[in-house]
């Protein structure tokens, strides 16, 4: 898949939150309100704030935003298909025209990303869309453009992955030998490299498959289960009726049929 992604180098992030500022500007949110949102939730994300900076260790910061999973739980959860992985850009996109506000995506996301505009009377879900509108014009996402310290790199996911692996495998590098986002929950478009552990960002272990993939057999089994139930009920009915006929139980059955609910016999 030739989708785009963002590589986050945690060692380069100073935690200055210029990316948050840029995101706020691009998405035309009220910067004052966005700024106070950091106190309202543990991870700072909100119905106005699509990206936040979290301290992950002493002197180390990392961005938290939608990771744009390759097998997104939110897209599997949404009953109207308002969330979809865009094959071209790699972004997981939200279509407010379809959403009915059931908030299952918020419950299903492994990383606690989708947020809700709770204070509005007709609220919608809010999350990072990797600035697909800017991408269409050939620009980088606003956060990447705003980062002065090269902590964020935008590019094709394959290239980024290669670059990340080169960086961490340089002799004498202090990086943890792991690219977060390479395989976790089936891979994500955002990749992280770091010299400290990033479990503060809800990362599961690298071998964790995505829940949506695990649940797929259950989804596929649904019509089979339905057909099995119907056939077994019809079969049981046929067997029992036949047995009753043989045993002469029909008269008993006929007596009950003049009730309000009854069956055709």
């Amino acid at each position, binding site marked *: 898949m030739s989708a785009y992604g963002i590589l986050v180098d945690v060692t380069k992030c100073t935690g200055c939150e210029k990316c948050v500022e840029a995101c706020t500007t691009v998405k035309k949110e009220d910067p004052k309100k966005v700024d106070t949102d950091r106190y309202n939730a543990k991870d700072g994300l909100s119905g106005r704030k699509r990206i936040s900076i979290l301290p992950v260790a002493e002197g180390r910061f990392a961005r938290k935003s939608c990771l744009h999973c390759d097998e997104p739980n939110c897209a599997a959860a949404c*009953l109207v298909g308002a969330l979809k992985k865009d094959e071209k850009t790699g972004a997981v996109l939200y279509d407010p025209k379809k*959403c009915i*506000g059931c908030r299952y995506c918020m419950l299903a996301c492994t990383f606690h990303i989708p947020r809700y505009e709770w204070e509005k009377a007709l609220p919608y879900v809010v999350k990072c869309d990797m600035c697909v509108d800017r991408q269409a014009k050939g620009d980088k996402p606003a956060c990447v453009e705003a980062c002065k310290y090269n902590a964020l790199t935008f590019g094709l996911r394959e290239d980024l992955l290669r670059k990340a692996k080169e960086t961490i495998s340089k002799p004498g590098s202090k990086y943890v030998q792991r690219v977060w986002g390479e395989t976790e929950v089936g891979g994500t478009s955002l990749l992280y490299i770091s010299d400290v552990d990033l479990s503060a960002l809800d990362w599961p272990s690298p071998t964790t498959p995505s829940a949506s993939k695990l649940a797929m057999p259950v989804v596929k089994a649904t019509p089979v289960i339905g057909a099995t139930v119907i056939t077994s009920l019809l079969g049981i009915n046929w067997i029992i009726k036949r047995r009753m006929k043989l045993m002469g139980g029909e008269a008993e059955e006929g007596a009950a049929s003049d009730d*309000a609910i009854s069956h055709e016999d």
Partner: protein
Amino acid sequence: MTRRMQILKDILWILAIWGLVAGVLRMKMGLGATTNLSDAMPWGMWKIFNMLAGAALSTSGFMLGIIVYVFHRKQFKSLVRPAIFIAVFGYGSSLFALLFDIGLPHLFWHPVFMWNLHSFLFEVFWCVSMYFSIAALESLPVILQDRFPSIGRVIHGAVFFLVVIGATLSTLHHSSLGSLFLLTPQRLHPLWFSPMIPAQFLTSAIGGGLLFLIFVRLAYAWLHDPGLSPNAPFPTRVCCVADEKPESEKIPELPALSKLAVIAAVFLSIYLVLKVVDLIQSGSWRYLGKGDLYSWLYLIEITMAVIAPLGIVAVGAARRSKAGLTVAGLLGSLGLALNRLDVGIFGFFQDAGKIYMPSLLEWSLSLGIVAAAGIVYLFFAEHLRLFDETSEAPVITLKTIFQPPSQSWRATMGPVGARRISLIFVIMLPLAFVSLGASSGDSEGDVVKPPIALDQTRAVLKIDGDRRDVATIFEHVKHQRRLGDKQSCQVCHHIAKPDDQTTSCWQCHTKMNAKSDAFNHEKHMSWVAEEKKLDGFYPENRSCVFCHDPAGPKSAETAKSCLECHKDDMAIVKDWAYATEPDVDIRYPIPYRDAMHGLCIKCHAAKQVELGKTGMDECAHCHQQGAYVPAADEPVDVEPQVEENEAVEGSDTDSGDNP
């Protein structure tokens, strides 16, 4: 009508009207203003209690259909009607509650046209709404009462197929309601998360739903028990004489009910096996011994939903007695509801890092919808003789509905009911006002708090530099004493401006990123040396051995922790509502750096305007390329202080040393 019934109906009416108020408020003001839902707990009472538990308790509708029309067990026939009406009103109220729960209620029809076949919720939506329609169709002949014989005949003819399709849809959506949580393996508490959760939901719903039917049947008999009626108040007795025909103490369906309990027990046993196998397989049985909220909830839930009913059913005498069946039915239904609450609400507390308690409005709407369903159910039960098919069913016409000969309508509407109505209103009004009041206070999120709060004596300041509601305690009085009492004000308050323009903490407490930074060894030693100053406070703080282990080398490792002396003054302030850092190391005040960060940046931003410079509030002004981790012996960065002092000379000083 008996007195019990009258009281129950009054309570139901109060709840229903209260719920109506809540419903109007919810539609007017939106979800955020009226509920306690949050990003961390996006699903609350309306979804979990009304939908999940409500649907689970309504399974008797399709189960009785299977038992009677597929297995041809005629002795259960008299229970089909109450069961189908439980399904109709159970599902009806659930769907109605969902209408309030979704954020955009006017778009509830979207799933009809916009499909995502991979979504469990999509399947639930379709199966539930289709099953609701089928249950409604099944109940139609009872309601129509042979008034439209053609419709009745068509449904009579199709009832077997309706039952089969309904049973299929029910099997699918009850397991899918469980599958909803297959997507949350990292978030749901391991005691409840299980790959087998669809099967667990299906079996527990069938077992619990049958027990609920048993309970409803017996409770209705109890409510109608004429034993108490001679003592009933005057109005109810007069109007309801016709209803109080000498009903026999015995309930004709009792044998059928106890057989039903056995069927329920079979399903509950399967459920129990699934639960136990899952606990062992996933290894989550270890959480049971923890003794925390979750283990207790789990044990209570399992005992109520499964073990108690199974125990009652296992004893023959209890199984055949009215009391035994009632208790089994009640515990089984409550346990089932608790299970759904555990899975949908309590099981997410750990992940959310906070407790979700439904708001008053959530409670009132939730209970109001249930109460409304109960009222309509009772209305049908009385007018259509749901529980008493053998007797001559009265033909209902519009006339009988509005001028019933003997039913509650006249009791409520007639002159004798006036007192009752006024009582309901007297109870309702304050409740409505409370609901209004509870829903209007939504301004919490927009308040920006000052970074410094003081207690009344100004002995302690709480500095919350970055306003995260985690404050550093600043012992103002103690600082004052250590620095030389009244004469020492200028040490910090050298710019004596309004607001918090004092010397920042870091100017004395140097190594601001080091964990032990709050501790300044030199200062502690000098205080030990100058005993005079400490005599009044800590006379024991005099020698190295007071802190350090005399045997070992004198290092930080051999010293006692700060907290051993500073018990009171180093506790983290938690009274600013939102202070939940789970792994706070209590040995040093964690928000210390954040407090200073907030102060620095604020001051820098102000100063760069004053000095006509730019970039002073940029991160890189203090933080060099890469993250800022100061070296161990890095000297105090005096540059900002110099700028500050320059500014002081130019600016006016309105004296006074207000902390």
